[in-house]
């Protein structure tokens, strides 16, 4: 492992990560740091392994090489109990929402509370209502996920992700399948949460509008060279020497030789 000292402000460190499925190497030498209270965007073209990187960070896939640290504690080398403990500090919003379809919204939000706190059932219900109110879903406690729209499902899933007041919130393509206005509202919600909860936020997305609105830092994965091409705040990456990064951030507008201006 590298002998570099961990940045004291680093919340998440990904070190020399190689992601592979059997012999097929998806991405190699990924190396970046996410500071506390960052909104960190993982971006890249379709099929570049953005979501796979997220799944590595959540421990759903084991790295072929390298490691992931939360604070100064290694997640990759942690034993099962330590991992479970770390996982409880995370909240995850899946691309499809992934609400438990057999449960009402209140039960969806309440399940993590029931499992990991000593709250009474009445208190659980009340906290769940509060979390749903925070995402604008007050009054929908007894609805099933199939009875509400896609945008509402995303918000309910966000309420569930926030149930245990996580330190780190992961978003997998939050705006996928949402109209521009709804996804803009979701972006605003993400920013509001970051400010009020003080959480670190990791977002996988390729929506330029979102990236420039919310990101304070980012990493760009390049599907062709199979490694990360750049890391830094997206606005600075507009002037990155790698033309692929500039092209991505300007929707290909850089191709005509312009020195990179936001769309």
């Amino acid at each position: 492992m590298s002998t570099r000292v961990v940045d004291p402000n680093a919340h998440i460190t990904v070190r020399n990560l190689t992601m592979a499925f059997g012999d097929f190497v998806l991405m190699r030498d990924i190396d970046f740091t996410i500071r506390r209270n960052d909104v960190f965007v993982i971006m890249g073209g379709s099929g570049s392994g953005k979501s796979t990187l997220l799944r590595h960070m959540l421990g759903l896939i084991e790295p072929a090489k390298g490691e992931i640290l939360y604070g100064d504690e290694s997640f990759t080398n942690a034993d099962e109990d330590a991992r479970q403990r770390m996982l409880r500090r995370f909240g995850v919003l899946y691309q499809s929402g992934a609400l438990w379809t057999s449960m009402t919204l209140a039960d969806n939000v309440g399940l993590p509370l029931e499992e990991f706190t000593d709250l009474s059932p009445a208190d659980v219900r009340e906290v769940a209502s509060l979390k749903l109110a925070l995402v604008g879903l007050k009054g929908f406690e007894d609805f099933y996920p199939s009875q509400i729209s896609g945008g509402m499902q995303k918000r309910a899933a966000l309420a569930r992700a926030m149930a245990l007041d996580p330190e780190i919130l992961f978003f997998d393509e939050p705006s996928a399948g949402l109209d521009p206005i709804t996804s803009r509202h979701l972006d605003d919600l993400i920013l509001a949460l970051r400010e009020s909860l003080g959480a670190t936020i990791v977002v996988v997305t390729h929506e330029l509008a979102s990236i420039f609105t919310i990101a304070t830092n980012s990493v760009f994965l390049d599907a062709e060279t199979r490694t990360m091409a750049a890391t830094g705040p997206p606005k600075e990456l507009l002037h990155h020497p790698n033309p692929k990064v500039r092209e991505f951030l300007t929707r290909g507008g850089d191709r005509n030789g312009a020195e990179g201006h936001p769309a």
Partner: protein
Amino acid sequence: MATAERGEVSVTRTADGTLLVRLAGAWRLRGALPTLEAIEHELGASSRPRAVAFDARDVASWDSSLLMFLVRVREECEQRGITVVPDGLPSGVGRLLALAQAVPENKDARGKAKRVPFVERVGLAALAAFDAASEFLGFLGEVTVALGHVLRGRARVRAGDLLVFMQEAGAQALPIVSLISFLVGTILAFVGAIQLEKFAAEIYVAGAVGIGMTREMGAMMTAIVMAGRTGASYAAQLGSMNVTQEIEALETMGISPLEFLVLPRMIALSLMMPLLCLYSDLLGILGGFAVGWGMLGISPRVYYDQTVYSVDLGDVTGGVFKASVYGILIAVAGCLRGLQSGRSASAVGEATTSAVVTGIVLVICACGVFAVAFYILGI
């Protein structure tokens, strides 16, 4: 009428050695495609043309059929090193043709589907079977550990979930179990009666049905019904939860899918199976009685006495015990296949099929093991 639906092709040589392909008529996919014969003949002639040009002024209408024809012509020309001049084509066709060749064929993408020799396939299948077996045993082990956690109070099963699964796997299964068990009872009685009638020993039908149902058929028929009914539904439930990332959502929340999803289902089925088995025994005996009384003329009192005389408590408890084990096997097979399911609609279907097949195979195997074990133990 048929000619109007077809594209027409004619070829002429111009003075400068260009092959002029004249296209006419309506080009529709519904009509048959014209053959390349005439063009191939010209291209293959000893004085090969310098270039191929088109005249499409008489084309009334066109769709992908014209495009396909032209792609074929272009391929033929490329092989022979003849240039294609697309100028005379309708502009839309020209653009589509350019689009079709803009990105060169991805050779890697096709290369993956290589043929695997027979011996290698046998080897791979054997390894896969070995993996599947060890995976099943591993899963059984994990479930046992999770059950240990629950028993020692380190984890808990939600009572509400458990009750719902018990209702689904218990009360709601009664109609189908009734029907199957009653019919199996009558079948046993019929088969027995045909043989026993020869010795005027019809009275022993009661004992045959009673022992057959309680020792083997009650547990076995219930297990097969439940494998098809509940095992399949477990696999479909967990499989579709896999598709929608609901299981990942549990895992990343630090909630074990084993404790949360598998255990309540397994406990519910292993609690309900013995009850269903007892019920099935009773219905089977009733079925036998229907035949004995209705067809063989055995009086109810005698049938009852004979049944009570020949069936002892060991037969019944043995069957009930077996049913409980079958319940665990069916639930484990269903849940494992569901959790292993791929993330597509067809994968969930395969998982469901596989859950039923695995469940029934396991039940039959276990039945064989029990038969030998009970024989050795003298039960």
